[in-house]
């Protein structure tokens, strides 16, 4: 088995997959803490279904680079969904659910009416559950992912204190003069970017897992925001690596293997958390 692993690890396509997997896991877990605490756990699901719908349109239009359409539309939806104004007529979770299933239905409908390949259900399935496309990434895509991830991490570090302030108490932040609207907008944009990137890795049905599992696991173990954020990032990267290697060795689907490892890690953290609590 070690021989098999060493053999695989020499292939450039496996290098690419590992780089992209780790970066996406890192970015999604950083934002996950904010999204879970703000009760936006399902934002990943909602936005990825939007991206799925737009991807269907892009493939019907036969765009050479569907990112050019998918990215802006998803960003706009993220901004609309995360705009936490008092005047919104439909409340947060209902709005997300509505856009999420609506986009999914329209996407599938469009793909059915204008089929672009003979293997329709295969196409749909690979977009929903993640495909082997993480193993067929080109150098260009990997670089795009590296650059975008670097931007996301940099923005997160620079805005870390502001993100904490508006996550804990947005009214206080706004009342005392913090530009909460601007920072909410920034968070919405990077959330959308991460989710479009993550579709390659785990597919649109499983993205929520990358966002919420590491944050929830870290919250079992730690009691302050900085530790939770750092733990969530470390845990997410570790689970993504473990999941990728298992899926390569065992030939299982990449996305669901990573999510399974994340879920297992949550279980371990939950038990550990209870043990720690009982000791104190």
């Amino acid at each position: 088995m070690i021989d098999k692993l060493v053999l695989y690890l020499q292939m450039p396509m496996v290098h690419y997959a590992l780089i992209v997997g780790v970066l996406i896991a890192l970015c999604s877990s950083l934002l996950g803490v904010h999204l879970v605490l703000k009760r936006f756990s399902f934002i990943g699901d909602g936005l990825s279904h939007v991206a799925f719908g737009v991807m269907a349109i892009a493939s019907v239009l036969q765009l050479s680079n569907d990112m050019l359409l998918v990215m802006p539309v998803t960003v706009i939806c993220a901004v609309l969904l995360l705009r936490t104004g008092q005047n919104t007529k439909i409340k947060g979770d209902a709005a997300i659910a509505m856009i999420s299933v609506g986009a999914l239905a329209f996407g599938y409908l469009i793909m059915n009416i204008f089929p672009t390949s003979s293997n329709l259900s295969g196409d749909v399935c690979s977009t929903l559950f993640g495909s082997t496309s993480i193993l067929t990434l080109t150098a260009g895509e990997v670089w795009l992912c590296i650059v975008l991830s670097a931007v996301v991490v940099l923005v997160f570090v620079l805005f870390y204190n502001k993100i904490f302030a508006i996550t804990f108490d947005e009214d206080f932040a706004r009342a005392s003069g913090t530009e909460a609207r601007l920072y909410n907008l920034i968070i919405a944009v990077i959330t959308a970017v991460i989710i479009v990137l993550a579709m390659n890795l785990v597919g649109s049905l499983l993205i929520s897992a990358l966002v919420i599992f590491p944050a929830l696991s870290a919250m079992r173990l730690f009691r302050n925001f900085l530790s939770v954020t750092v733990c969530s990032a470390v845990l997410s990267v570790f689970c993504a690596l473990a999941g990728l290697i298992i899926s390569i060795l065992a030939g299982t689907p990449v996305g669901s293997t990573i999510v399974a490892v994340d879920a297992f890690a949550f279980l371990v953290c939950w038990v550990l958390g209870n043990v720690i609590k009982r000791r104190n």
Partner: protein
Amino acid sequence: MELIRAEHLSLGYDSHNIIEDLNFSVNEGDYLCIVGENGAGKSTLMKTLLKLLAPTGGQIRFDGLKKNEIGYLPQQTQVQKDFPASVYEIVLSGCQAHCGLRPFYNREEKKRALENMEKLELTDLRNRCYRELSGGQQQRVLLARALCATRKILLLDEPVSGLDPKVTVEMYELIAGLNADGITVIMITHDISAALRYASHILHIGEDIFFGTRDEYAKSPVGRYFTEKMGGQAL
């Protein structure tokens, strides 16, 4: 010096007005209590003073009060009940409004957070998790955070709700002490006896609107109704 003046203020949601033609002013060093029945619009008034809501009519003038010179003690939200954050992280976040676009807190702001924690006897709780504290301790943390945001004016939204009687008195004394140090206080409360004991001015909203000093309130019809019911013990 006058800090806030409300002129012919109307408040409400959409086009429905809860309060109309409200006039009052707050001077530096005042202790204003806003009292009134549930649903009278106390919290709406506070959100308008904080510029979280726009008034439906009239205006509020803020003279000599910059946007980042307001300290606010909100009511507890659902999110905060299971939020993983240490006392120090929360108190320090009160300095955020002074940072502008600067990403990290500077030495002066960290010192200020520590001073305010010292003042409110939170130093020993520095690394404790907020959600594991008692109600009174949580309110002191939020008060310390508000003090990091301002040295001028505090707006408190029912600061003693859910606290036991002993902690309630301690909280009131703490706020009175801050007022004595020169910080202007605007407080929403249900507790008219506390308002009569600590406030310098009282704003009563509801069917009857009253604004004036504490002594004027005690003599006014709306104030007399309450003081007589309580046997005048508050004064």
